[in-house]
C-alpha cells in the first residue's frame, strides 16, 4: 500500500504542470536569468568612490586606527577606492551634505559615532556599514587594517557588485569570529545563486502541501476518499510526502547541475557537502509545506499563497533582492535570520565556500534539522485529528 500510494502520488505530482513549473522549471529559468543579468552587470558596472566627509575633531585626529582606515579606503591610488573623503569641520560637513556634494558624514566621539545622511540609498548604506564595522570590531588596528586591505585590494576585478559581495563577506566574517579565511573571493552573483538555491529548496513546500492535501478529508475530495481506504493516515502521509520529496530533490539536483556544471557559477569544491545542505534545505521546505497545510485553516489556494509568500519573505531577509537587506536584518533583528531556513541555507553555502572547517556549516545543517523537526511536530499535532466537525 505504501509503495502503491508513493508510485501514483509521484506520477500525479510529476504530471501537474503548475507544480513542476514552480518547483523545477522556475528556479532553472531564474538561474539562466541571474547568469545573464549579473554577468553583464559585473562586467560593465563600475564602482564610483562614495563622497563622504569625516568631521576632523579631536577624537578622530587622536585615533590612529580610524585615520589609517579612512586613508586606505580613500586612497585614489587604490583601484578599489571606496570613499572620496573630505576632512572638515562639522558645520562645513553639514553644508556639503545639504548641497548634495557628499552622501553622508560621520562624527566620531567617545560614544557611538554619528552618521548623518539625507536619504537611504546604497551609497549611504555602505557608508554606515563600514563605519559601524570599523568601530564595533574588537580586532587590533593591524588586523582591521589587514582586513580592509584584503577586502578592498584583493578583489579580482573592481566594481560595484563585487563591493557588495565584499560587504557580505565582511559581515559574515565578523559574525563568526573565524579569522583564517581563505583567499576565495565571493561575488555578488554567487550570493544571488545561494539565495536562488535556498528559494528552490523552500518552494518544495508546495509539493509537500499538495501531496499532503490529497490525503486529508477536510482538504480535497480525493482526501475524503483516501480517508475511507484501509490504509492508515500515517502511511498515506509518509508515502505522499516522500513522493513530493523525491521530486523536489530531483529539481534541486537539476538546478545544481545547471548552476555549477553548465553556468560555471563558483560554489567551491565541496560538492558532497553542497548536496547534503540542499537535501537538508529541501527537507525544511517540504516540512514547512506540510505544516502550513495541516496547521492552518484556509482554502487550498490560500495555503499555497501563504507558502509562496512566506518563502519569498525568508529569501528577501536572506538577501535575495539585495544583500543589504540581509545586513539590515542581521544587525537589527538577528533572531529573524537565526530561524530563517533560507538564511541557514545561504549561510551554509557561504561557510562551505569561505572556510576550511565545517563548524559553521554544521551549525546551519543542525539548524535546518531543528526547523524541520518543529515543522513536523506541528504537522503531527494537527494530523492527530481522526474525525472532523464538518467537511
Amino acid at each position, binding site marked *: *500500500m505504501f509503495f*502503491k*500510494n508513493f508510485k*501514483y502520488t509521484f*506520477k*500525479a*505530482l510529476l*504530471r*501537474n504542470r503548475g507544480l513542476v513549473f514552480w518547483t523545477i522549471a522556475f528556479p532553472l529559468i531564474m538561474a539562466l536569468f541571474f547568469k545573464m543579468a549579473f554577468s553583464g552587470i559585473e562586467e560593465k558596472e563600475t564602482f564610483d568612490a562614495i563622497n563622504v566627509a569625516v568631521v576632523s575633531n579631536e577624537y578622530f585626529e587622536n585615533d590612529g586606527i580610524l585615520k589609517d582606515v579612512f586613508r586606505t579606503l580613500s586612497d585614489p591610488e587604490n583601484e578599489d577606492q571606496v570613499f572620496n573623503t573630505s576632512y572638515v569641520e562639522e558645520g562645513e560637513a553639514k553644508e556639503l551634505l545639504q548641497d548634495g556634494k557628499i552622501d553622508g558624514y560621520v562624527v566620531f566621539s567617545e560614544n557611538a559615532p554619528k552618521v548623518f545622511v539625507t536619504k537611504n540609498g546604497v551609497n549611504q548604506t555602505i557608508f554606515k556599514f563600514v563605519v559601524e564595522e570599523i568601530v564595533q570590531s574588537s580586532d587590533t588596528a593591524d588586523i582591521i587594517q589587514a582586513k580592509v586591505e584584503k577586502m578592498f585590494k584583493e578583489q579580482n576585478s573592481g566594481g560595484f557588485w563585487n563591493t557588495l559581495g565584499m560587504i557580505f563577506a565582511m559581515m559574515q566574517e565578523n559574525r563568526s569570529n573565524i579569522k583564517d579565511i581563505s583567499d576565495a573571493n565571493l561575488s555578488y552573483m554567487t550570493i544571488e545563486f545561494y539565495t536562488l538555491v535556498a528559494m528552490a529548496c523552500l518552494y518544495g513546500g508546495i509539493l509537500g502541501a499538495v501531496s499532503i492535501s*490529497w490525503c486529508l*478529508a477536510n482538504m*480535497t*475530495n*480525493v482526501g*475524503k*476518499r*483516501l*480517508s*475511507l*481506504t*484501509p*490504509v*492508515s493516515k500515517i502511511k498515506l502521509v509518509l508515502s505522499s510526502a516522500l513522493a513530493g520529496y523525491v521530486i523536489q530533490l530531483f529539481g534541486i539536483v537539476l538546478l545544481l547541475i545547471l548552476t555549477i556544471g553548465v553556468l560555471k557559477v563558483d560554489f567551491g569544491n565541496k560538492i558532497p557537502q553542497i548536496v547534503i545542505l540542499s537535501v537538508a534545505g529541501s527537507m525544511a521546505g517540504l516540512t514547512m509545506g506540510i505544516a502550513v497545510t495541516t496547521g492552518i485553516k484556509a482554502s487550498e489556494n490560500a495555503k499555497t499563497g501563504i507558502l509562496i509568500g512566506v518563502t519569498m519573505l525568508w529569501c528577501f531577509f536572506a538577501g535575495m533582492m539585495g544583500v543589504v537587506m540581509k545586513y539590515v536584518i542581521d544587525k537589527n533583528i538577528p533572531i529573524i535570520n537565526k530561524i530563517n531556513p533560507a538564511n541557514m541555507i545561504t549561510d551554509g553555502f557561504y561557510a562551505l565556500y569561505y572556510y576550511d572547517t565545517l563548524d559553521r556549516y554544521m551549525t546551519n545543517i543542525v539548524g535546518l534539522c531543528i526547523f524541520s523537526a518543529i515543522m513536523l511536530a506541528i504537522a503531527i499535532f494537527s494530523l492527530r485529528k*481522526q*474525525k*472532523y*466537525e*464538518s*467537511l
Partner: protein
Amino acid sequence: MENIVEVKNLTKEYKKKKAIDDLSFDVYKGEILGFLGPNGSGKSTTINCILALLNFSKGKIKIFGKEMKPNSYDLKKKIGVVFQDVAVFEELTVFENIDYFCGLYIDDKNTRKKYVEDAINLVGLQEFKKYYPKQLSGGLLRRLNIACGISHKPQLIFLDEPTVAVDPQSRNNILDGIKKLRAEGATIVYTTHYMEEVEILCDRVIILDKGKIIASGTNDELKDLANIKERITVETKDLDNNHLNEITQLPEVFEALYEDGILKISYKNEKNNLENVIDYLKSNQIKYRKIYSERPTLNDVFLELTGKELRD
C-alpha cells in the same frame, strides 16, 4: 434479515443547530436502501457520520456488527463509497485512477487487474481507459467516480447522489450498474433527491427532512401514506368552469385542477376512475389529445408530509 448497518439515535449538531436529529434505522443485507430528501436534509451528513468521517453529538453506529471508528481498517476493506463530488486525480488516466484506488484495497496483482477490468466494464468506460478526467464529459466522469469507489468489490456500498447533473445515457448506465452490483450481492445505501431513481432502484426508502426521518418503508407503503391514490391527467382545450365543477362531483374525486389546457384529477381511491372520466368526456363531447392515469409519486407523499415539494 441480517443487519449490515445499525444506526441508533444518531444526532449531529452544528453550533447548537441539529443537522441530524435522533435518526435510527437499519440496513439489511442485500437490499438497496434509498435516502430521499431535498438538498440540506442531512443525507450526506448521515453517511459521513456512519463512515466515521464526522463527529456526532450522540448515538451509536455499527457496521457488520462492529462499532465504526476511523481506524476500523477491517471494516473499511468491506466498504465502498461514491461521493457526490467527483474524487479522482486529474493527473492520472481513467485506468490509473481505478488501479490506484483498487490497489489500496487489493494487494494481489492478478486479482487487482481483474477487478479493475470488471469495474471499467461495469461503468462502460472501456474506450476511455487512457483518457484523463478533464477529457471526459460530466457523465463519463461520474462513471469513473463510481468505478473508483466500487472497484474492490465491496460488500457494502454508499452512493451519495451519484447521478447529479449527468446526461440520460450515463444515468441509465449508472442505474444499470447499481442493479448489477446488488445482483452480485452488495448491500447499497443510495442517497438522492431524484424520486424517480428511488422508485426504480430501492427496496426500501427513508425520507429525510431537516435531519429527521419523516417516513420510511417500501415504495408502496410510502405511497399509502398519501391521501391521493390515483391521478388522471387529460390534455384538452374544450373545458370550461361548468365542466370542471361537474368533474369535481364525480365519485371519489379529491381535487380537480385545470391550467394551461391540462386537467389534473386526484382520487382518494382507485375504483374505475379512468373509465368514469372517459365516459364523462364522451357524454359531454369534449375532445382530448391525451389521457393517462398515474399512481401518486413520492413527491406527493413528501408534499403531503411536509407541505413542500421535494425539490424546493
